[in-house]
C-alpha cells in the first residue's frame, strides 16, 4: 500500500510539476548567485580583472609619475585581484564607461601636480564609477582612498621638502640635488619604519599534518588556492540546511491539500491507522529534499569547483537531515491544519531553527544563552557542523555516523508525533 500511495503522489507531481521545479530552481539560482559573489573558479582570482581608465589632464612630470605608478599595477595581483589600467583621454574614457567597458575612470585634473606640491589649495582626484557594476568600482574606490591617504600623509610629513620636489618635477634641479632629496626622504622613512610597517599578529597552519596525510597515501587536503572558495563551501552547507527547512515545508503543503480536499478523511474512512498515509508523505518529501540537496550541494560543488572531502558521508547526512525536516514539517501540519495560519508558523519555525542552528551564520556569533543552551539541541546545527567538520577535516567529523542516527531518530519521533496529533484531530473533527 505504501508503494501505491507513493506512486499516486509521484503521478500527481508529474502532472503538476511547476511547484516542484520552482522548489528545485530557486535554491540553484540562490547557490549560483552566492557562488558568483564568493568564488567562481578559473584563473584571475575570484573577482576577475578590474579594468579602469586613468585620464591624465595634468601633463606634468608629477602626474606622469602617478600615471606610471598606476601602470605598474597591471603587473600585480592584489589579494586575488588583477588590475588592468588603461590610459586615455576623458572623452574616450566616458564613451567606454557608458559602453560598460570600464569599471571606473580616475581623472588627474589640470594643475594637480602644481597645486599638490605648493599646497596652496586643496586638490582632488576625480573618480567616475560604472553604475552598472558594484564590486569592481568599489574596489577602485577603496584603492584610490588608500592613494589619497598616502598622499595626505606625504603632504603632512614632507611638506618642508615640497618646494625642492617642485623644482625637481619642473626639471630645474640636477641629479645631485635629486639624490640628496631621495637620501633625506629615505632617512625619514627609515625612522618611521615601525609606524609604516608595524608587526602583525597572525598564524599559519601546521604543514606537518598535511605532509603526514600525504605519506599515508591518502589524498591530502587540496591547498586552499582560494580562501573565498572555502568560505563559500562553509556557507553553502548552512544555506542548504536553511533552504531544506523551507523546502520541506513546501513539500508538506501537499498534506494541507489532502486535508482541504478531504482525501485524507476519505482514507481514514477506509483505514483506522493513518501511519501509512503519513509515512508515504514523509518518504515523498525526503525524496524531493534529497534531490534539492544534490542540486545545491552537488551542483554548487560542480559549478564552483568545490571538492567535497567526504561526499558519501555528506549524502548520508543529507538523507538523515531530510528525514528530520520532513518529520518536522508533518508535525507542523498536524499542529496547525489551517493552511494560511500554518504558513506563518512555518516561516517563524524555519527562520528560528535555521538561525539558532547556525545555518545563516556561525553559531559562535549567537548570544551566549542561545549558543550554549539551545544551539546544541537543534538538529540543523548537528547537520551543519558535522558537514563543515567533514569538509575541513576536523577530527570531530568522525562522529558523523552518530549524528546520522540522531537525525533519523528525530525524523521517526516527529512522524510518530504527527500521527498522534492527527489521530486526536480526527476525533474532534479534522477540518482545514
Amino acid at each position, binding site marked *: *500500500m505504501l508503494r*501505491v500511495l507513493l506512486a*499516486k503522489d509521484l*503521478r*500527481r507531481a508529474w*502532472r*503538476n510539476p511547476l511547484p516542484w521545479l520552482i522548489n528545485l530552481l530557486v535554491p540553484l539560482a540562490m547557490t549560483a548567485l552566492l557562488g558568483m559573489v564568493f568564488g567562481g573558479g578559473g584563473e584571475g582570482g575570484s573577482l576577475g580583472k578590474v579594468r579602469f581608465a586613468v585620464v591624465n589632464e595634468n601633463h606634468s612630470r608629477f602626474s606622469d609619475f602617478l600615471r606610471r605608478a598606476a601602470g605598474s599595477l597591471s603587473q600585480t595581483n592584489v589579494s586575488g585581484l588583477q588590475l588592468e589600467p588603461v590610459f586615455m583621454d576623458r572623452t574616450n574614457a566616458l564613451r567606454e564607461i557608458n559602453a560598460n567597458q570600464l569599471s571606473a575612470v580616475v581623472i588627474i585634473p589640470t594643475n594637480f601636480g602644481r597645486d599638490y606640491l605648493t599646497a596652496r589649495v586643496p586638490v582632488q582626484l576625480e573618480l567616475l564609477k560604472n553604475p552598472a557594476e558594484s564590486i569592481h568600482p568599489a574596489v577602485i574606490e577603496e584603492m584610490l582612498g588608500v592613494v589619497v591617504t598616502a598622499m595626505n600623509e606625504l603632504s603632512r610629513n614632507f611638506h618642508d621638502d615640497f618646494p625642492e620636489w617642485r623644482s625637481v618635477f619642473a626639471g630645474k634641479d640636477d641629479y645631485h640635488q635629486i639624490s640628496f632629496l631621495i637620501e633625506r626622504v629615505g632617512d625619514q622613512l627609515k625612522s618611521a619604519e615601525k609606524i609604516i610597517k608595524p608587526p602583525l599578529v597572525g598564524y599559519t597552519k601546521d604543514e606537518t599534518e598535511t605532509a603526514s596525510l600525504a605519506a599515508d597515501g591518502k589524498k591530502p587536503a587540496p591547498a586552499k588556492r582560494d580562501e573565498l572558495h572555502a568560505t563559500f563551501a562553509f556557507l553553502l552547507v548552512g544555506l542548504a540546511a536553511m533552504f531544506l527547512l523551507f523546502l520541506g515545508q513546501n513539500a508538506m503543503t501537499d498534506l494541507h491539500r489532502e486535508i482541504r*480536499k*478531504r*482525501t485524507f*478523511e*476519505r*482514507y*481514514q*474512512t*477506509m*483505514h*483506522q491507522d493513518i501511519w501509512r498515509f503519513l509515512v508515504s508523505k514523509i518518504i515523498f518529501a525526503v525524496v524531493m529534499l534529497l534531490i534539492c540537496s544534490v542540486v545545491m550541494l552537488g551542483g554548487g560543488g560542480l559549478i564552483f569547483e568545490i571538492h567535497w572531502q567526504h561526499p558519501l558521508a555528506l549524502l548520508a547526512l543529507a538523507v538523515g537531515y531530510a528525514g528530520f525536516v520532513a518529520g518536522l514539517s508533518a508535525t507542523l501540519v498536524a499542529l496547525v491544519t489551517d493552511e494560511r495560519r500554518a504558513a506563518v508558523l512555518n516561516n517563524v519555525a524555519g527562520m528560528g531553527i535555521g538561525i539558532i542552528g547556525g545555518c545563516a551564520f556561525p553559531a559562535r556569533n549567537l548570544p551566549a544563552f542561545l549558543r550554549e543552551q539551545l544551539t546544541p539541541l537543534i538538529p540543523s546545527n548537528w547537520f551543519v557542523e558535522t558537514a563543515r567538520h567533514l569538509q575541513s577535516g576536523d577530527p570531530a567529523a568522525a562522529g558523523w555516523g552518530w549524528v546520522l542516527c540522531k537525525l533519523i531518530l528525530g525524523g521517526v519521533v516527529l512522524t510518530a508525533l504527527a500521527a498522534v496529533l492527527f489521530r486526536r484531530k*480526527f*476525533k*474532534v*473533527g*479534522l477540518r482545514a
Partner: protein
Amino acid sequence: MSLLKVAHLSKTFGAVRAVEDVNFVVRPGEIYGLLGPNGAGKTTTISMLSGLLAPDAGEVLVAGTALAADPQKAKRIMGVVPQELAIYEELTGRENLEFWGRMAGLSARDARARTEQLLASLTLSDRGNDAVKKYSGGMKRRINLGCALLHRPQLLLLDEPTVGIDPQARLNILEFIRDLRTGGTAILYTTHYLEEAESLCSRIGIIDHGRLLAEGTFAELQERLGGDRLFVLEADFKNTTPEAWPGFLQRFRLLQQTERQIVVAALGVRDPADCFKELLNLPVPVENVTLKRPSLNDVFLQLTGRELRE
C-alpha cells in the same frame, strides 16, 4: 437483521449539541433517508458512523459489531461518499477509481477490473482517461460516488451526494443508487431535498437541531398528520383563534396558521365532501379551500413549526 444500528448517538461541540440521542437502524436492501435542513446534524452523524468523529455517547453497531470495538472491520464493509468531492483532480477518473480500489484492499488486477465496471455503470467509460479537473460537476459527483463502491460495500453512507449539480445529473445518480439497493446494499442517504427523500428512500428519518423528530415510511409520516389529505384554507385569519371555533378541534387538527392561510387535517376517516362543507361554514368567510396530499415539508412543518426550505 439490521446492517447498521445507531443507539443514543450524541455529539456536542462546546455549547452546541450537534447530535442528541439519535436512534435508527438500516437494513440490507433498504435506503434510509436522513432528511433535515442545513445544520441539522446529518454530516456529524455520518462522520461518527464512518469513524471520523468519536461520539460523546451512544453506540454504533455495524453488522452486529460495535464500531468502537473493531473499527477496521466495520470500515471494511462500509463505503462512505462524503459531501465534499474527495478525489484527486490531477488524476484521471480511471486512476482515481483504481487508487481508491487499492486503498480499499483490492489487488491491482481486481481494482482495474472493478474500475472498468464502475466506469461503465457510471457512464464515464469514454472519459475515463481524462483528468478529473476537466469533468463537469455531475461527472465529478459520479466519480466521487464510484470511489466508495470499488470494494462492493454492504453498507453505503452517502452524505448529500447530489448537492450542487443539475437536475438531470441528479436523476442519473439517484437511478444509480436505486440499482445499488437491489443488490442488497444497505444505504444511509442524507439530504435536505424533499423530493429526493420522497422518491428514493424506503424509510425517512426527519432530523433537526440534532434530534431525530420522526421516522418511518412516507405513508407512516403522512399518517402523523391524520391521513393522506390536507385542507388548505385561504381567508383573513388575522386576529382569529381557530381553537375557539365551536367543534372545530373535535373534527380537525390545525397544522399551520398564518394571517392568510391555515392548513388542517381531518380527524378520523371522513368523507372529503363533508369536510369541505364544514370548512366553508366556519365563522370566518373562507375565500378558497384546496385539498392536497401531505408532503414531507408538511410533516417537517408540523414537527418543527417551520418549513424545510427556510
